[in-house]
């Protein structure tokens, strides 16, 4: 089974006619770490949402491992999504569940045993620095804490892909760096990481592959790149 993500001539036009992505070609191989950068409204989240099937593509094809997204049935969708650990740009926490339950839920979904859940969830919460908030509800958390719950949820099932959409937008630089280091560590032990971000300092410092999008097109794809050309 090929462990790759491949975009082949992918275009996405939204219902209102807006062209979210135009003819995108992109290959991400197993174990890579990719920054997705670009101005606000460029199409980074569109690309990510196509990947996990929240939006359907209009043209081209996206391959994720054995899945072909254009022809993916409704029934297969959950199986695709379980390959991906997704950090959503807008958090998408369940408001009526505590921090612990929000993270545990992602494990219940894949049918994990309650022993595994009891062991793994506290560990992940520890990693993102939320152990002391485990019984709080999302509305009782600060913006950055909510964001970290989203990150913990994405990590908890040890997915082979982490797809993070602006995971550090509400974090102070130091916490942001801690999260980055966590991602780098997870990447090191095998996971592929795709991270859409505006955090220039992180991108510049960590020197990973940078894919820049503008107005729905890939305008740059650079190994060991920086946020802007100037860098």
């Amino acid at each position, binding site marked *: 089974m090929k462990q790759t993500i491949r975009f082949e001539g992918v275009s996405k036009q939204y219902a209102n006619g807006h062209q979210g992505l135009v003819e995108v070609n992109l290959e991400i191989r197993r174990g890579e770490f990719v920054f997705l950068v670009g101005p606000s409204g460029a199409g980074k989240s569109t690309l990510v949402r196509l990947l996990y099937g929240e939006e359907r593509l209009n043209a081209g094809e996206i391959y994720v491992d054995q899945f072909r997204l254009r022809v993916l049935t409704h*029934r297969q*969708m959950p199986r695709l*999504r*379980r390959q991906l650990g*997704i950090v*959503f740009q807008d958090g998408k926490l369940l408001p009526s569940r505590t921090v612990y339950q929000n993270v545990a839920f*992602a494990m*219940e*979904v894949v049918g994990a045993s309650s022993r595994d859940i009891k062991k793994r969830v506290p560990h992940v919460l520890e990693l993102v620095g939320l152990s002391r908030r485990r019984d709080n509800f999302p509305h009782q958390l600060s913006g950055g804490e909510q964001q970290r719950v989203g990150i913990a949820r994405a990590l908890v099932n040890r997915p082979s892909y982490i797809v993070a959409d602006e995971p550090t937008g509400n974090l102070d630089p130091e916490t942001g760096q801690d999260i980055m280091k966590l991602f780098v560590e997870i990447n090191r032990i095998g996971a592929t990481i795709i991270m859409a971000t505006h955090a220039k300092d992180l991108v510049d410092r960590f020197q990973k592959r940078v894919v820049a999008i503008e107005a729905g097109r890939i305008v740059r794809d650079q190994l060991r790149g920086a946020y802007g050309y100037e860098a």
Partner: protein
Amino acid sequence: MKLSGGLYVLRETGRSLWRNAWMSVASISTVAISLLVLASFLVISINLNHVTAVLQSEVEVRVFMKSGTSRAAEMQLMDTARHWPDVRRVTFFTKRQAARALQSEFPAQQGLFALVQHSNPLFDGYDVFATTPQKIPQLAARFRAQAIVHNVIYQGQVVHRLVRLSKIMQWTGWIIESLLSVATLFIIMNTIRLAVFARRREIHVMKLVGATDWFIRWPFVLEGLVLGLIGAALSLTVVANGYRWIVNEASVAVPFWPMAPFQQVVSQTALFIMVGGVLIGALASAVAVHRFLRV
């Protein structure tokens, strides 16, 4: 679904009812109230049927014997007639009894009284009660064909009306009951749909983190089922106690009015309401969730 899955569903259902307590109360009370209305009319409808059945059984055919027929012949015919298919009951009366009945119907008619006392112009005969009023005309004809029978009378108009009326009442009962059932169905469906609608984002998120449709659906279905169950139980409690009270009161206030027996009424209603509530609740949830699973 494995055992752990079943436990998950149970726990989720409980938590969800509790978390959305306010919404659960609103839904349950709506379910309870609409089932209460439904149950009440089921009780009324059962009673209507009961009353018409009783009323119908009171309609009689009067068969008069030719004068001079021997008592033995009269009795023999009666014994035969008792076993005719549509006959429920036959009672014999002598012409003296007939005269007394006439007198008591016209107590003021002194002249009539005197006349009847003096030389009774009436006949011996039977009061025959049919199993159903529809059979009365046939029954009358059959009696009329007997040699010793002088004459058969029955209140044709009354029978006709009564049959029609009771049919109308029964039909009305069933129509109302069906319409009410449909109305209840709709109301419960809408209520649960609104409750689920308020949680559409939650469903959306579940799908996005990889939950299968059934994983999301089960707790909702069970929740709908529990809502229906609680609602049905509440409405049944009210109806059963209410009907017990009514039956007791009626036995004093209107003793001549035939009430359908408590046991029968409550068991029939319970069956209908419980099964209905549970099924509707579960189904409504499943349907309501469906809309939001297409992600």
